[in-house]
């Protein structure tokens, strides 16, 4: 591998990533409004993506994560401050990982 082509490997990665960022939007814009059944399905994408991102970290990575997640959930219901939720979650996880052998 010539050193000069490393840039191209990275630029290739960048183009592929940008393609994933624009293609869904491009397609959706091109097709415009879809049949109601499809629109009713698409409407659930945002929420279910967020749930799918966190579910393995919440439910499948041990007791500490599960307990901290539950704490974050409870705080989220009470507070509209993302910093409080984040700091509390991280602090709980850090303390438990360092001081509680679970």
């Amino acid at each position, binding site marked *: 591998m010539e050193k000069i082509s490393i840039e191209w490997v990275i630029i290739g990665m960048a183009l592929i990533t940008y393609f*994933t960022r624009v293609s869904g939007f491009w397609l959706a814009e091109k097709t415009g409004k879809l049949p109601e059944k499809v629109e009713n*399905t698409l409407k*659930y994408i945002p*929420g279910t*993506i967020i749930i*799918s991102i966190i579910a393995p970290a919440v439910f499948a990575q041990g007791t500490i*994560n599960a307990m901290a997640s539950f704490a*974050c959930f409870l705080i989220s219901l009470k507070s509209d401050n993302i910093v409080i939720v984040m700091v509390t979650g991280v602090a709980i996880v850090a303390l438990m990982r360092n001081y509680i052998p679970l």
Partner: protein
Amino acid sequence: MNFTFKGIIDGFVKALPIAVGVASYGLVFGVLSKQAGLSLFHSILMSSSVFAGASQFVVLEMWNFPLPIFTIWIATLVVNLRHMLMGISLRKHFTGLSKLKSYLSLFFLVDENWAYSMTEWKNGGTNAALLLGSGICLFCSWVISTLIGFIIGSGISNPEKWGMDFAFTAIFIFLAKGMWSDKSDLFPWVVAAGVSVLTSKLIPGHWYIIFGAIAGSLTGGILSSFTRSKELNYGKN
């Protein structure tokens, strides 16, 4: 929807807490990229042109010479496929925006600022520039922390000990609250969670986000067509 400079600034400022979480991972990426043998230039080039953390970490694992170029590119595609679903969801918020504004904003699309912007818009926000502003904030954080991590070089490669990996989980739990509409979300979300956990156990890579989201959305779509036809029948009676 409108698209104003104030919206960009607003998005930038609101994303600062999230940028802290991003920076902790940027530091680690900087450290690991140096250990993997990237030059400072290549490390910064990757963070500033790809700007997608998960795929960058995956590629570092493969960074042995001769570089497996196609494996690297395919891995990048697979890990980042979820952006397509996010892009679809942006359509109705970017209606009427110029091509330049839309496609510039899309360069800065990552999980965190997408989720943040969607939540804001769902709860009454009308500035389409939020995604761009928050994206620029996270971009700066990601690139600068890559640089710092590369220069420091070691000693910060274990953010898990300090719970930093949980920062994103906490952020998304908070944002999920803002995504909740009504109890019709419950079953799709349960299905999404179940499928994503199962997929993460069974299939290596990052398929769990896509599989979970598709399964959950289909569930929602099917259920809403049932409730709708029920309403129609009720109307007839």
